[in-house]
Every structure is written in structure tokens, then in C-alpha cells.
């Protein structure tokens, strides 16, 4: 088996009294698109910055292509391209100049690929960066990264500010990169994007990876949501093992069922009599909710307050 591209074990990073990373484990295999999911402040960007050698870890081990990202930063950077979530450019350089600059600093620029990407992302490279919207600055960094032939793409929420059309272009580009054998670490909180692109995902929360695996593995561990319009009263379904959160709204029954308990529930539903039925696998949103479940009561309370104000 080939060595992982990224391997972090028990990584710790503190900023003063706050602990940004608290024993983070992360393994990214060659050639995979690895989704790195978590809410703001979970430690995604800190991890990225340690992988780039900008920050030094306070504990644990981290290897990039088998080398130390702090000590061997320059050598490692020949093999990767990085796109931050909030790209800052030099106000008086044009987008085209910034694209070329980054690619040349990386060592090589595929001119044809660069022009093709400029075209696909619909960027005007002659405008000064100070006139660019956030989305356009993001495009500059993406085009530059994608136009460089590298082994690893470190993308930290790369499509923040892009419109849905460009999101599609971005997804195509990532698929092309993977087809070419590039490894991608894609941090995001746009769940749909990770869902479509990632081979495996790691969910990070409060500086630790709480779950890692392929989407299929994680789904297995989670629940299917069923919404049905029934003839009879389905209230007794709540008694079945593995059924959660059953409620009835305007004649529709909503329930969640554990992945391995779907069959008996469907059988019982059929007995009650079904007029229409929708079942869907858990979205990443729901996967995340499971791990940030303790945030929910607080949110519910906030919503309650809001209602009372009205």
C-alpha cells in the first residue's frame, strides 16, 4: 500500500488559552478527494495552516508526503497548491497578473490550461484586483491553483462567494483533477459540495476529528428520513425499535429510522396504508447535527425567544 499524502496524529495547537486543535487525527490517501467538514471555528483553517508550515504544531505528529511541513515547507510547496477561503490580492495588480505570479512562484504555468480556466470561470483578467468581488478573487486563486500541475490541492472553503453556475464549473475541475491523480483536501461547510465530490470525509469539531470514512460508511451509521401520507393512524410506529422523532404534521407522518431498521418500519407502514412516501438518506447536514447535537437545545431556545418576541 502507498503511503498517505497527509498523515496527522494527535495534533495539538493552542493559541494562548484557547485550544484550536485538540488531538486531531487525519489521514488522506493518494488520489482521493477528502472532504474536511466542520462548522466555523472547528479548526479546519488551523489544520490547513499547519499543513502549509505557517504554524508549528504544539503536539502530535504531522507529515505531508512523508516529510515535516514546518521544516521542509519550501520543498513540499513545489508539490501543492493552496486556495484560502478568503483570498486577498494586491489591489493594484490585475487578476491575470496574480494568476501568473502564483503559478510561476509554484514553478510552472500551463498557459493553455490557464486560458481555458479563465474562460470557463468567466473571469476578466484585465481588471485590477481592487475592483473584484469576493467571488472573483476566489476565482483568481482557484484558476491559478488548478493551472499548476501539482500532486496535492489544499482547498480551504474554496468556493465561498461563487455563484451556483461557477460551483458547477468548480466541481467539474475537481473531478478532472482527481481523474489526473491529484489528491485533494477540500474543507467546506457547503455540504452538497462535499457530498458530490468527496471519496471520504472527516468531520471535525472543536479541534478533533469525530468521524471519518466514506459517505456510505457514515450513512450506514445514521438514519433514514421517511415522510409518508398514510391512510390509518401511524402513531404506534413510534414504539418500533430504531424509530426516532416521529411526529405528524397536516396528515403527513415524519420519522427517522436507524439505517439497519428500515425494513420492519416499511412493512408496518404498508400495513397502515400509504398514499405517498418519500424516503431519503441522511444529508450531511443531518450527519453533522448528530455530532453537534448538543448545540441544538441552545438553538431551539433562541428560536423560541424569537417567536415570543413576535
Amino acid at each position, binding site marked *: 500500500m502507498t503511503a498517505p499524502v497527509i498523515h496527522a496524529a494527535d495534533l495539538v495547537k493552542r493559541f494562548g488559552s484557547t485550544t484550536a486543535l485538540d488531538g486531531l487525527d487525519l489521514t488522506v490517501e493518494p488520489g482521493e478527494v477528502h472532504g474536511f467538514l466542520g462548522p466555523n471555528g472547528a479548526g479546519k483553517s488551523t489544520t490547513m495552516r499547519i499543513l502549509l508550515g505557517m504554524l508549528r504544531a504544539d503536539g502530535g505528529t504531522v507529515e505531508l508526503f512523508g516529510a515535516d511541513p514546518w521544516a521542509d515547507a519550501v520543498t513540499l*510547496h513545489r508539490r501543492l497548491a493552496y486556495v484560502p477561503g478568503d483570498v*486577498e490580492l494586491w489591489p493594484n495588480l490585475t487578476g491575470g*497578473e*496574480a494568476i501568473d505570479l502564483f503559478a510561476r*512562484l509554484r514553478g510552472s504555468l500551463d498557459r493553455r490550461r490557464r486560458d481555458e480556466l479563465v474562460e470557463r470561470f468567466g473571469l476578466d483578467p484585465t481588471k485590477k484586483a481592487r475592483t473584484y468581488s469576493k467571488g472573483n478573487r476566489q476565482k483568481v486563486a482557484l484558476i491559478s491553483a488548478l493551472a499548476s500541475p501539482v500532486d496535492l490541492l489544499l482547498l480551504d472553503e474554496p468556493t465561498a462567494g461563487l455563484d451556483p453556475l461557477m460551483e458547477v464549473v468548480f466541481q467539474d475541475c475537481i473531478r478532472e483533477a482527481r481523474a489526473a491523480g491529484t489528491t485533494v483536501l477540500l474543507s467546506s461547510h457547503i455540504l452538497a459540495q462535499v457530498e458530490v465530490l468527496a471519496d471520504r470525509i472527516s468531520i471535525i469539531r472543536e479541534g478533533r476529528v469525530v468521524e471519518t470514512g466514506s459517505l456510505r460508511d457514515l450513512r450506514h451509521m445514521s438514519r433514514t428520513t421517511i415522510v409518508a401520507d398514510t391512510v390509518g393512524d401511524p402513531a404506534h410506529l413510534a414504539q418500533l425499535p430504531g424509530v426516532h422523532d416521529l411526529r405528524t404534521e397536516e396528515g403527513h407522518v415524519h420519522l427517522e429510522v436507524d439505517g439497519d431498521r428500515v425494513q420492519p418500519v416499511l412493512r408496518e407502514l404498508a400495513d397502515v396504508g400509504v398514499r405517498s412516501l418519500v424516503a431519503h438518506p441522511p444529508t450531511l447536514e443531518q450527519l453533522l447535527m448528530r455530532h453537534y447535537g448538543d448545540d441544538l437545545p441552545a438553538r431551539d431556545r433562541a428560536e423560541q425567544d424569537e417567536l415570543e418576541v413576535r
Partner: protein
Amino acid sequence: MTTAVARHTPTRAGSGSLTGTGTLVRFMLRRDRFRLPAWVAGMGLFVVYVGVALPEVAPTEEALATTVPIFNQPVGRMFTGPGLGLDAPTYERFFAAGYVLYLFLVAALMSIMLVARHTRAEEQSGRAELVRANVVGRHAGLTATLVVSLVANVAAAVVVAGLALANGFATTGSLLVGAATGLVGMTFAGVTAVTAQLSEYSRSAAGLAGAVLGVAFVLRALGDMVRVGGSALSWVSPLGWAGQTGPYVLDRWWPLLLLVGLLALTVALAFWLQSRRDLGAGLLAARPGRAEARPWLGTPLGLAARLQRSSGLAWGVAIVALGIVDGLFTQALVDSAADLPDLLREMFGGETMRDGYLTFLAVLVGYVTSAYVVFAVQTLRTEEARGRAEAVLATPTSRTAWAGSHLAVVAAWAVLIMVAAGLLTGLAAAAVTGDGALVGATLLAHLNLIPAVLVVVGLCALLFGWAPVLLAPVAWALVGVMVLVGNFGTLLDLPRWLVDLSPLSHPAQVPVEDLDVAPLVVLLVLAAVGVALGILGLGRRQVLGRS
């Protein structure tokens, strides 16, 4: 009718193009609550300083007469005004002839920045759109900006006039100086209101208005140079009109009417242009830049050269211009040497007045160039704080290459500025004195100080590498020491350690003394050690993220 309905019914009072002006005025005053008082206080301090310093330099008004040649001859008039009333100088006339022009300039700069900040900068950032989406009229923003300019300039006028009176200067003249200051400020607020309509960018808007101010200054300078009291050319410049009021001498108010007229014209033009364009749009089209980077923009050095280019050029031109102007003063200084007050003569080197003056000029260019160095090295801090350094360092660019490139470019600019200033100051001095040998002597005086300026590069590198938060305070403090020691080292009898703190104190005083290589070598070694240690520190510390 219930209140719930009334809440959603637009009232007549809220439908004009000026709706919301009052709220915006309060909002702008709140945003500028420190900035504007600082500008006004600066002008007030200047008036007080002149009032205190003049009797200090020349204890009697007879003694004052001996310094008149500094402002009285053509080059002096270029930089001060028409030179009215200097045949019978008093402190107040000296104030009007030598210094009020700078009050006008400061008021104009305050107004240019104020208007650009509240009009085009707001539109460029998109904040104006947020504001205008509320119940705010089309012209409310510009109107509120002009009201705030009026508040600031009236405050400036009152403070300047009041403190001039407090200096014991005559009433009419003092009121006239205050009024002229405020009106020049307002006129340039009007000019900026127009330029803000033209360009999409606030920097271009302020730059265009600044160019108008520059042209006004040059026209007045040439006009006033021609003869005492000014010539026709003085009368085509708004700064000339303000000077032609002749405070404490002619005491005439009517030239201010010209300023009022120009103000009315520019304000009307600004509103007319604004009602003719879309929010965010400019009347001058934005020029497209290059779609591809030039070949040299692809290395850390190329990037640093590009990023440092405009500030290096701007500082360089300004410093060299300063040198040339000072060089042109050489003959006037020599001519008036015998009559100068002792204090001033001491400042320029006692007996060998001319050489002492040239030594002083080199020190002056040295500390201003050091200020450029500190300013330019701070780019590294900005790059790091804005996350752009991280983007560059995420490529195979080492920290040494990144910071080293910037430091090398800054050092190269500093050397270039010193050489160019030395050469051109020397040429200017040689031209006015007719002594060709001054070119070489002046150039050598400047070259002699280059190692001292490079020590500042070393110190900045050291601070940036090990204690980046201390870069600005410590480096600027050193520049402050260099200015203090350079200007007043002999005059104020400063303690030895303070004088020694300034790197500029250590080279020999060329051309008064002969060139001494030993201190230069020491300074160069110090500079190199500073840079090396700084880069070592940068490699060991973490790259600071944004915010």
C-alpha cells in the same frame, strides 16, 4: 387609521433627494470624531508654534529683519507666498509671509481626504448602496459630506483666527487668515466633490483633487517668484487668491470672493454630475490592465520590486525635490550669512556656512530616507496581516526569499534615493553658487550617510523577524531621534547618548570634515547583522494569520 398601517405609509417628509441628510451628517461626524479634531488641532498647534518660535529665534523685531532674506528672495517666495510686507517685518507679517500658505495646504488636504472618504470610498466599497437602500435621498450623501466639510473648515477657521489673536497678532489680519484657511479648505472640498464624480475609485478621486492642488501650488509659486507681491500668474490659482488677501499688510477681503465663487461653481457641478450617473459608476472609464503578468513578475524579487515600486517612486521624487529646493537656497543662505541670527547660523555649521549647510542637507535627506525605509518595511507587516504573505509562502517561496526580496528592494530604493538626491542637490547648489566643485562634495556627503540609512533597514528587519508588533513603534521612534538629533543636536545641547543613538551621527561630517571609512564599515556590518538576524527570527516564528 391604526398605527400598523401608518407605519407602512411613506410620509411626504421622507421623499426628497436630501432625505436623511441630517442623520448622515451625525453619522459622519461620529466616524470622524477623532480624525477631524486632530487635523484642526494640528493647524492650531502650528499657529501657536510659530507664535512661540519666532520670538525665540529672533528676540526682537529688528533681529527678525535679518532673517527676511530667507523668505524674501525668489526661491523663498516660491515656497511661502508673495512675500508681502517684509520691507517692514513684524512677527505677524512674518507669520503671514512665511507660514500661512501651509495652513491653506493642510486645510485643503484635510478637505480632499474628508470628501473622498465619505463619497467615493463609500461607493467603491458598496457601503453607500447599503445606506441608499434606506430612506435616504440621492443627494443626501454628498450634501452631508459637504456639511461635514463646512463644520470642519469653520472649526479650522475659528481655531486659526483665535490662536493668531492669542499670539497677539492684529485683529483684521488674524480673522482674514482664519477665513482664508477655511475657504481654501471648502474650495478643495468642492473640487473633490467633482473629482469624486469622475472616477470609480476613491484613490483616483483624491489623487485628481491632489493634482489640482499641486497645479494651484505651482502656478502660485511661479507667479510669486516673478516679483514681490505676486504677478498675474498668482491670480489664476486659488492658493494665490488666499495669499493675495495680504493679512496684516493689505488686509483685503475681496479676493476671498473668488474662492466663494469657485466653491459655488464646483458644488453645483458636482450635484449636476451626480444626478446624471448611476450609483457606483464613474464618468472616467476604468482602464483595463494587463491580462497576463510580464515575465519578471514571477519571482519573489520581481513581486517585491513591483509592490515597492509606487511608494519608492513617490518618496524618491519627493525627497529629491526637497533636496533640489534646498540646494537652490544655498546662495541665498550664503548671502544672508552675515546677517543671520546666531541660532540659525549655528544650526548650519558656524563659520563654514556653505559646507555646514550642505552637511545638514545630507543629514536631512538621510533621515527622510530612513522614514521611507521604515514606511516601506512595514509593507511586510501589511502583507502578513492581510494574508497575502501566506499565499506567497504557500508556494515554494522560502521566508528568506520573501522577506529578503522586500528588504533588498527597500535598501536599493534607499541607496538610489540618496544618490539621486545627492547628485541633484549638488547640481542645484552648484548652479546657484556657480561653484562646480559642490556637485562632488554634496554627492559625497550623501554617499557618506548611506551605511547609516542601511542600519535602519537592519533594525527594521530585526524587529520584523523577532518582534513584529514592535516594528512600527521602535522604528518610528528611531526616526524621531534621527530628526531631533539632525536638526537640533548642536542647537539644544542634547545628551551624548541620544546623539549617539542616531546612526547619522557617526559618519564624518562631510564636506566640513574629511571622509572617514572606519565608521562606515562598522555601520555596514551592523546593517548586515540586523538583516541576517531578522531573517533568522522570521524562519523561527509562525506566520501570523489574518485579524
